[in-house]
């Protein structure tokens, strides 16, 4: 595997106690692409994201960021090159939404002018559709609004390309979980736009159709291993979905884009009812 300008996991393994969570997984995000990681609960998606973010260190294998091992970059350098949107962001104290987004500028303190900071915060708030909440106490925002505010913070962190041309990466852990239909698509369209602008984006997603609609590449994780990987049509086949998620389904094709659309059939025997009947 080449160690070019990407954010890559090489043969990483991670176990919590006896439980093996990831087993020799290799994953790469290149600049300019949106990669979706999908898989059932407990497949190791969030752990993979934490390894790529540097929150956890792999017990075997290595994470490489822009051609250098991740542990070789210090915290400040990492922050210039990648932003992370956690699954359920929280915040102590009554900061206003503007202040929350401004926190994303922390890595750039002393590197950018006040105008650049302001433009980045403002632009990021517009992009995440939260500009009208700017002066509000973030605790008064709804779950979805707060989540979008933190998305704006991640955008502000990666707002401008780095002077030395190093690639930037955005890691999103279930970014659509608390959002309504409009904002689910809005946030992924924005993430896609960021990838088009040259950054690498990796998003952990549950909704296969959202992944199919926006991802350049999909990685299917199952029980700590990569079960399938490729373009949406290559990764989301009927066989893969049925085997990995254990649901009967049909794969249609989107009339406009040709991307797969997964239609899950109603389960004929509800699992609980079946178990009750068996007992």
């Amino acid at each position, binding site marked *: 595997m080449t160690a070019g300008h990407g954010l890559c996991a090489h043969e990483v393994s991670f176990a919590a106690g006896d439980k093996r969570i990831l087993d020799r997984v290799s994953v790469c995000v290149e600049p300019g692409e949106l990669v979706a990681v999908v898989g059932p609960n407990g497949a190791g998606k969030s752990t993979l994201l934490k390894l790529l973010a540097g929150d956890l260190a792999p017990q075997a294998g290595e994470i490489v960021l822009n051609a250098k091992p991740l542990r070789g970059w210090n915290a400040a350098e990492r*922050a210039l090159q990648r932003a992370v949107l956690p699954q359920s962001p929280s915040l102590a*104290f009554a900061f206003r939404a503007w*202040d929350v987004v401004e926190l994303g500028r922390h890595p750039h303190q002393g590197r950018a002018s006040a105008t650049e900071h302001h433009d980045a915060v403002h632009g990021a708030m517009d992009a995440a559709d939260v500009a009208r909440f700017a002066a509000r106490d973030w605790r008064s925002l709804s779950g979805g609004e707060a989540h979008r505010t933190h998305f704006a913070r991640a955008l502000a962190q990666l707002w401008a390309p780095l002077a030395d041309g190093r690639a930037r990466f955005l890691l999103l852990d279930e970014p659509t979980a608390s959002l309504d239909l409009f904002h689910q698509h809005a946030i992924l369209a924005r993430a896609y736009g960021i990838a088009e602008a040259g950054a690498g984006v990796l998003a952990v997603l549950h909704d296969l159709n959202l992944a199919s609609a926006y991802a350049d590449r999909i990685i299917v994780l199952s029980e700590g291993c990569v079960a399938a990987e490729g373009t949406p049509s290559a990764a989301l086949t009927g066989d893969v979905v049925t085997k990995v998620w254990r649901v009967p389904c049909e794969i249609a094709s989107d009339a406009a884009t040709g991307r797969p659309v997964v239609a899950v059939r109603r389960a004929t025997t509800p699992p609980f009812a079946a178990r009750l009947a068996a007992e």
Partner: protein
Amino acid sequence: MNAVGGAVSLLATDRLAARRRGILLGLGTCAVLAALIALGTGAVAISPLQVIAILLAQFGIDAGVLVVPQQDAVLMSVRLPRVLLSLAVGAVLGIGGAALQALFRNPLADPGLVGVSGGAACGAVAWIVVGGMAANWSLGAWGLPLAAFVGGFAAALGVYAVARSEGRVDVAMLLLAGLAMNALTGAILGYLIYLGDEQQVRALTFWLLGSLGGATWGTILPALVFIAVALVSLAPLARAFDALALGEAEAGHLGVPVEGLKRWTVAGVTLGVGAATALTGIIGFVGLMAPHLVRLIGGPAHRFVLPASALLGAALVTLADTGARMAVVPAELPIGVVTSAIGAPFFFWLLRARMRDRGWR
């Protein structure tokens, strides 16, 4: 629509920044006024003008205000060191409270929490009971603060060591370890007091409740140096504290070296609060109240909260000390009694307010 929202937000940001500058200026004025009141109040009354004239006279400037030599002597040798100490102790308790609240991401944290105050108290009491009273007083004046400082540092290190595993400090563990450490220091204190004779017990009690009565130029200078170092090392952490409000992992994502920040914060607070406790005993609640009040009026950004807490803490302790001196003339109340009498009801109110907050959130 977005442009309008942006313009509004920009204005709001500017207004808040201007307001914070105004509040800092106001708190600075409060601290100066509190100092003038404290310097002028006592058995020998000195008007604010006379206070200023005496201070100017030290620099060879004649302000043309009539001053009695006795006023000059009282101000320079008794009140000025005491007021300088109260300002410094208040400032370090305020900023220490704000720093610990930022570190624990919890507005109920206080310098007493990491065991500094309890450990310092143990050190001082051990000195008084075991050796201090036997030695002559000039040795006692140095031994007491030194013993308190060593005790505070040891307690903080112990708490830190317990809370640390695999290179990380878990904040919940730090809180629990602080709780256990306070129970331990409480037991040691109780035992030492039980061992002490009547005269010692009286000295202990007064010290435990807090007093600035021991302030002389000789005793305060080392403490002022320690406190200055603590203030200077904590103040630049403001932006990192803001990021830390997101959580430790998230602060790390923003480039904050979180483990280093935790160690630096605990060391800075211990240095400052340990030195303060050594000289004045335990002055409760200032570290809790000052940051909370400034957050209420100016918001939670630490570039504002840290200096504002220091200024408000300085004003609070100086006024509380004046109150303690004047309440039962010619005797003195322990200052800890004054701050706790104000602080404890405040703490109850805070708990109730937070419960209402939770219901709303």
